[in-house]
């Protein structure tokens, strides 16, 4: 999906992708008005290429996080003019107006791979270590105690807990206890 205000640039980008064949433009938005945000939410694009200028001036600094509310797809900045460097932070990749077709394709591929690796780690079941930590949490143990039990740093325990919540969809300690019980990880 492309989010590019200038029609000529958007069409040019599309024709480069068409001539190479590997990527296909699913849709083009000229800006992020309210209606377009909704279309973005329902889009099934694997990648988004956006000219930072498509965002309102105020939102440009947080463009990436604003988009994350609507899509999981990696977002690549298309730099068409000289921009404040701050506006380019946070994007998964930056494409320059003068990049050759092969460079563009390479950058698109790179952004896609990084995202896939992250997602794979997310979608799996709880690991053995995560189950152990979940049981300890359900028993009412504090992060520090858990860290000592398993010889981990508190920081690692917190990361495990974040992953547990992400995988199970459950955040509160009381909720995790019920989860552990329903899955026969603990006896009540």
């Amino acid at each position, binding site marked *: 999906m492309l989010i590019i205000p200038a029609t000529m640039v958007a069409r040019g980008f599309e024709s480069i992708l068409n001539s190479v064949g590997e990527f296909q433009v699913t849709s083009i938005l000229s800006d992020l008005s309210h209606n377009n945000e909704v279309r973005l939410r329902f889009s099934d694009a694997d990648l988004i290429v956006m000219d930072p200028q498509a965002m309102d001036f105020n939102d440009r600094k947080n463009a990436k996080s604003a988009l994350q509310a609507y899509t999981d797809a990696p977002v690549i900045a298309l730099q068409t003019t000289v921009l404040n460097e701050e506006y380019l932070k946070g994007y998964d990749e930056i494409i320059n107006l003068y990049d050759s077709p092969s460079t563009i394709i390479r950058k698109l591929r790179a952004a896609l791979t990084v995202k896939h690796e992250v997602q794979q780690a997310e979608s799996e079941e709880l690991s053995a270590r995560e189950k152990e930590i979940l049981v300890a949490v359900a028993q009412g143990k504090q992060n520090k105690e858990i860290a000592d039990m398993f010889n981990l740093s508190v920081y690692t325990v917190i990361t495990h807990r974040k992953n547990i919540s992400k995988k199970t*969809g459950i955040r509160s300690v009381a*909720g995790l206890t*019920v989860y552990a019980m*329903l899955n026969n990880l603990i006896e*009540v």
Partner: protein
Amino acid sequence: MTHKDLFASNGKTLLADLIEQNFPLINIVGRLGMDLRMGRYTVAEVCDKAGVDLETFMLICKIYTYDDFVPTDNLLDKVSVKDIVKYLHASHQYYAGTALVQLEESIENLLRPCSEKQKSAIWKFYSEYSDEVRRHFSYEEEQLFPYLDMLCCGKENNGYSISQFEEHHSNVDEKLADLKNLIMRYLPEECDNNLCMQTISLIFHLETDLLHHTRIEDEILVAVVNRIEKNGRK
């Protein structure tokens, strides 16, 4: 009709048109004691009959309709704190007297085929949640609302201030979201599918309504009262 006209501050929209555009607004109409049978009248007329401030009604409708709407200072200056409190109070009654009771019944039926252990674990979780929400409501009813009454009459305050409310404003949505996920993802297979769907829709409904409720507290009430505490009522 565009949304901009729909919420026009002159209140010329028909009540029926307003509800048709965004059905959940029906909750607000009921809670402010407005008459739904007056659908053919304009919002201004219905508000007038119910003694509700038009601008405050429209503001609540906008918060309810747009997730990212934040009122300007100009709008906040015109808000009727009395009507906001009326709305919040009626919402509390609805949650405690209807929504939570329905949910409770639904969960009870749903869990019937489960083992005693499973039943008691989920039930305990639900009761803790429901107690926590009710405590939260009674705190507002007993501490916050009387304070707002005094503030609106221009009386001296009793040492309370809205910042204490903000501190006390705990986050109970996390547990409701957990309940939803426990039921959607991890319920034993013996449970009835229809009852499961019913319970899940009740939770979604309550969750959305509570979200708006919190936004009305944060974006309108806290903001307005902060301004009154600072500058006095104009």
